[in-house]
């Protein structure tokens, strides 16, 4: 029971808004000590895992390219494309991206798009421009919501597309675990059972994107428009 102290530290730390890196370190040390490990062993275990998961941080190498393109006006160009496309509403734009992201993830192409590669330089500015096309007095809060939904759409598309792909990590994990219990199941079965949820995710999130479009088209009286 004592090892659960780490979970309490995490929850309390996030709620009290301490620096998350400190909270994580404190949680790791407390959990390890509660389990009877000595400090050196905890630090070594943490260090090993940190080194083994470096691939998570590879994505930052795209930043120089994004920085170069943004300095030369990529975001402005992405916006002007939307201005020229008359039918490109906020809802349609993000719903198309949702479908594209789900479809790509379903065939295993999960790292092709993402927050650094596509959302910041392309999807978010395009979504903002599409919202502006319907509402010339978009407030800062509305702008913030459009950007947040651009990132959310990327996540929903990725999560509820990737499990349709046969060789994704989660399917291999399920297969391995169930074999441990004596059930040998083909990866294809897991893939097929991910499809109903993928469809439901598309319908639910697509519906919310339509409502977002309507909400963003409403001008809030009394609030100053941002320049």
């Amino acid at each position, binding site marked *: 029971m004592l090892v659960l102290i780490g979970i309490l530290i995490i929850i309390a730390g996030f709620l009290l808004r301490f620096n998350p890196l400190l909270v994580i370190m404190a949680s790791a040390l407390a959990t390890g000590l509660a389990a009877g490990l000595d400090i050196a062993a905890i630090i070594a275990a943490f260090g090993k895992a940190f080194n083994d998961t470096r691939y*998570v941080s590879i994505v930052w190498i795209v930043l120089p390219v994004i920085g170069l393109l943004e300095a030369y*006006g990529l975001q402005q160009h992405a916006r002007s494309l939307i201005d020229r496309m008359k039918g490109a509403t906020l809802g349609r734009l993000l719903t198309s991206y949702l479908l594209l992201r789900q479809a790509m993830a379903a065939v295993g192409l999960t790292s092709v798009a993402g927050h650094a590669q596509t959302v*910041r330089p392309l999807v978010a500015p395009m979504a903002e421009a599409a919202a502006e096309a319907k509402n010339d007095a978009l407030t800062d809060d509305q702008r913030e919501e459009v950007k947040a939904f651009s*990132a959310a759409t990327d996540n929903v598309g990725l*999560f509820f597309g990737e499990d349709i792909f046969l060789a994704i990590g989660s399917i291999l994990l399920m297969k391995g675990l169930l074999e441990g219990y004596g059930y040998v199941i083909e990866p294809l079965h897991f893939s097929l059972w991910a499809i109903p949820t993928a469809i439901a995710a598309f319908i639910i999130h697509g519906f919310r994107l339509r409502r977002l479009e309507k909400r963003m088209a409403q001008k809030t009286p009394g609030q100053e428009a941002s320049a």
Partner: protein
Amino acid sequence: MITLGFVYVLTGLTFALFAALGVADRSNPKRFGNAAFWALLALSMLGGDWLGDFGNGLLVLALVAIAGTGQIGRAPGGDVPAEEQAAHAARHGPFLLLVALIIPAVALAGTFLFKWVPGLADPKQATLISLALGVLIALGVGMARLKPPLLLPAQQGRRLLDAVGWAAILPQMLASLGAVFALAGVGEVVGDLIGTAIPHGSLFGAVLAYGLGMAFFTMVMGNAFAAFPVMLAAVGMPLLVMQYEGDPAVVAAIGMLAGFCGTLMTPMAANFNLVPAALLELKNPYGVIKAQIGTALPLLAVNIVFIWLFAF
């Protein structure tokens, strides 16, 4: 053959360059903290395999000390003026879009190429290696045509990374915390607790506990992969599959997706929820989570109903 090691070297050199440019940026009052932070990350990428487990642990402690004492900050300004950007955009617009699409296009093509033609690159890491190659090609093409000052991409890239700040290593930190949790047996303890809390005799009650437990435990751990083995052992196998004879493929597959609904709602899944908020410069660090809750909750309900309908 190209391996992930090549990508780590490239990433390490990029961080080292950010550190060097950071220390020279006198407009940033916290330039030494920033430079030390990115320099340590460069060391991790370049030499992590030679530091040993304890050495890597000390490196992490140093990163936490720098960030935790507030030594990291970004310099004000440094944006290329909007008019200048607009003027460039009018001239180079379609080209910029083309270069931006080089990265996903090369990642796509490389993923297939490296799997079909063995010997070029490690097929297990095909996408990450292709992503890195895409970056190099895009940078080369962009520099050749736009002819910017040599260091402009690195300077602008550093500014973007400074905006993300310490959140850049949050995903790696949380993954490492998960490893310590596993070592300490946190999962088994939580599993036992949930197992004893389920009302007996109700099939739907068991399905509900399994789905909600997956989502909740994923929120705590930040990762459905960490929650899944625990919930499967505590509820999925003993109750849903063995006692009520549910289809194990459905219980596993849709149970995992119930966990993904939890991922959408937790700051612990930093790379999906907190990092993009920083990258998009949102005022509310939880803005992305806020946008996702309205999708995650109904979808969680749908998943629970799907398990109940399809597994039995």
